[in-house]
């Protein structure tokens, strides 16, 4: 499943996409994120599965434009969560 967490507002699209088929629940993104945006737990959108996957925490979903800004000073900087993910499961839309 491609899980898009984030929002669209007047200034643009701000989504963190997690490919849960790739994610192995290793938590390296959780350790890499300095602001507690990432977490790993049961897949709330696939309640019949027992696999643990990464997701964006509820409290950050509507403000990632601001929370993630320090990790994205320019377009050529790869944010730590993406760098940490060995499975290439995380992408940012902006």
């Amino acid at each position, binding site marked *: *499943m491609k*899980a*898009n967490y984030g929002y*669209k*507002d*007047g200034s643009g*699209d701000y989504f963190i996409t997690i490919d849960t088929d790739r994610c192995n629940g290793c938590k390296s993104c959780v350790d890499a994120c300095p602001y507690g945006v990432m977490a790993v737990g049961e897949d709330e*959108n696939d*309640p*019949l599965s027992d696999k643990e996957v990464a997701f964006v925490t509820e409290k950050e979903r509507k403000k990632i434009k601001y929370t993630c800004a320090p990790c994205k000073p320019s377009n050529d900087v790869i944010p730590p969560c993406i760098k940490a993910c060995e499975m290439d499961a995380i992408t940012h839309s902006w």
Partner: protein
Amino acid sequence: MLEHLVLLLQPLVGKEVNNMAKQPEYWRWTESRWTNPDIDYKGKVITSGVDVGSVSSQAVILADGELYAYSNMRTGSNSPDSAKKAMNWAMEDTGLTLKDLSYTVGTGYGRVNVPFSQRAITEIACHARGGNFMYGPTVRTILDMGGQDCKAIHCDERGKVTNFLMNDKCAAGTGRGMEVFADLLGVSINDVGNLSFDIDKEPQPVSSTCVVYAKTEATGLLREGWPKNKVLAAYCSAMAHRIMTLLERIGVEEDFAITGGISKNKGVVKRLEKEVGIKIMETSKYDPQIAGALGAALFAKALYDKGKK
């Protein structure tokens, strides 16, 4: 001194007239309830789903996985109460009580506040599952246009989510926005869709996506002499456009179905269909607002069966 002041203020206080009760409620959409006359639930496993949304609440009851009864009503200020009311209404005259429910799943904004539920599941998962049941296994894209959010979901033939996107940060493109417009123009929300086609020429959509500013813009258009229907058309088309930009992010795969209250508004649905260029499936015979609760009830059945094994 004080007496003088009181005397001075008295006529003002006395003249205050409460006009609130006389205002017609244009936003008020039709609540619904249904029982399947062909099913006898006795001896069957009863599972249920309750969707406590921001604007509406639904309860769905299944007997051995088949749709037995549902209700769809407005959410009050208290989530547990709304959940109970919706369930009581669905059970009305059926002889069922809360004790007969083997498993209940809560979903929607108020999903953790359903007092008689055993589990809470996100509305994304529930809408995919419910949409799959209502529209059949060929559905690949489900757009849920709810009261205060909008969700685009891709699912497989079993109703399992494969991709999703949700917009719940802004009221543009939601049912609540339409309610505000119905109120502003004094048109019953049930008539908005049809009236928005009763125009000479399709107007430009209102440019503001924000409901508050769109309302300001509409007030300006009315002042310029635009007829009501034309303003409605401009808003319906703005809403369709707004949703289109959201859908573009994940794409639309056929078959394409819409659930939620806005799916009853042809003014938005037809315009969206034109923008997407893909035919939108005809609404099912059930109320399209129950998709979330229906999905929750189906999960309740699956979880009940899983627990028995």
